[in-house]
C-alpha cells in the first residue's frame, strides 16, 4: 500500500486558526496543490489581504507580501511589474475584494495585470465578526443587518465573477465551490487553469470560490457546508464567465 493523498509541499505542516469546517482551509490546500503542480512554489510571491486569510504567510511556504485591507490587487500590481518573472497571486475575501477593494480589483483586472486572484466569497466579514458584505444574500441576517439584508436599502449581492468578466484585461473568470467532492474537483480544475493562464502570460485570471463561515453564519459546520448548495449557488451560479485564451 502506498500513500495516495498527501499534503502539498507548498502548504506548511501546521494546523490553522480557521474555525472547524471553514472552507478557507480547503481552498488553501487547493491553491497549494496548484502551486506544486506547476512547480512555481520557489518563484511565487503570494499577496495576502486582510481577513481570516491574513495569516497566508503562516500556512503557505512561499514569499508573501501583506497588503492593507482591499489593496492586494494594487500591491500585486507593484510586485508583478517589479518582478514579471515571478508567479504572483492574491487571496482575498469578499469584504476585502468586493467592498473596500472594489476600485483596485476592477482596475487591476482592466489593465490585464498578469496575476491570479483567488476570491473567497463567504457572504460576510468573517474576521471582524460577521458583518454584512456586498455579497451577503438578501434577507441574510448579519451583525450589521440584524433584520436581514434589505434589497431596497442595501442593494443586491454583487456577482464579482460576472462583473469582472466584462472587463477587457480579464483572460479568465470563473466561480467554483468546495462543498462536495464533485464541486471540489471542478474547483481544482479551474484554479489550475487560472494559474496556467498566468504561467503562459495570458493576462488576469480570477477564481471566485464560494466558501462557508460556520462561525458567523451561526450554524454547524455541516449546516454551513450544506448552505453553499442550498442558498449560495442558486444566486451565485458556478461556471466559467470568461475564457479568453488569446487575449
Amino acid at each position: 500500500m502506498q500513500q495516495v493523498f498527501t499534503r502539498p509541499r507548498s502548504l506548511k505542516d501546521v494546523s490553522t486558526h480557521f474555525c472547524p469546517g471553514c472552507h478557507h482551509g480547503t481552498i488553501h490546500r487547493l491553491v497549494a496543490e496548484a502551486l506544486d503542480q506547476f512547480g512555481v512554489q520557489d518563484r511565487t510571491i503570494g499577496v495576502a489581504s486582510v481577513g481570516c486569510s491574513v495569516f497566508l504567510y503562516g500556512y503557505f511556504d512561499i514569499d508573501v507580501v501583506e497588503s492593507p485591507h482591499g489593496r492586494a490587487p494594487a500591491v500585486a500590481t507593484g510586485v508583478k511589474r517589479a518582478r514579471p518573472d515571478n508567479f504572483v497571486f492574491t487571496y482575498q475575501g469578499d469584504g476585502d475584494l468586493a467592498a473596500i477593494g472594489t476600485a483596485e480589483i476592477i482596475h487591476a483586472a482592466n489593465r490585464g495585470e498578469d496575476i491570479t486572484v483567488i476570491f473567497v466569497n463567504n457572504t460576510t466579514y468573517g474576521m471582524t465578526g460577521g458583518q454584512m458584505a456586498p455579497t451577503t444574500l438578501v434577507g441574510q441576517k448579519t451583525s450589521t443587518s440584524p433584520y436581514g439584508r434589505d434589497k431596497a436599502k442595501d442593494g443586491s449581492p454583487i456577482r464579482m465573477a460576472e462583473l469582472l468578466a466584462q472587463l477587457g484585461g480579464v483572460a479568465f473568470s470563473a466561480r467554483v465551490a468546495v462543498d462536495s467532492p464533485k464541486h471540489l474537483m471542478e474547483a481544482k480544475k479551474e484554479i489550475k487553469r487560472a494559474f496556467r493562464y498566468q504561467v503562459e502570460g495570458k493576462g488576469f485570471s480570477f477564481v471566485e470560490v464560494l466558501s462557508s463561515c460556520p462561525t458567523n453564519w451561526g450554524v454547524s459546520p455541516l449546516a454551513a457546508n450544506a448552505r453553499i448548495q442550498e442558498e449560495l449557488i442558486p444566486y451565485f451560479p458556478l461556471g466559467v464567465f470568461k475564457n479568453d485564451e488569446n487575449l
Partner: protein
Amino acid sequence: MGRIEIDELRCKGCGICTIACPKKLITLCDKVNHQGYTPAEAPCQELCTGCALCAEICPDVAITVFK
C-alpha cells in the same frame, strides 16, 4: 483496498468527511478532546476504496490515504 489515517491533533471535528465518504466509513467520536473538539474516526475500514474523497474535502488536511 484502501486505508486512511486521521490526525487526532489536526482534526477539528467538523464532520464534513463523514458525508463525503461514499462508504460512510467515518463518524465523529463523542468524547471531546483537549481542544474541545470531537475528532473523526474510521473504526472499520474494510470497505475503504482509498478514493481519498474524505481527504480531499477535509478543510484541515487531517486525513492521509493509502491504497
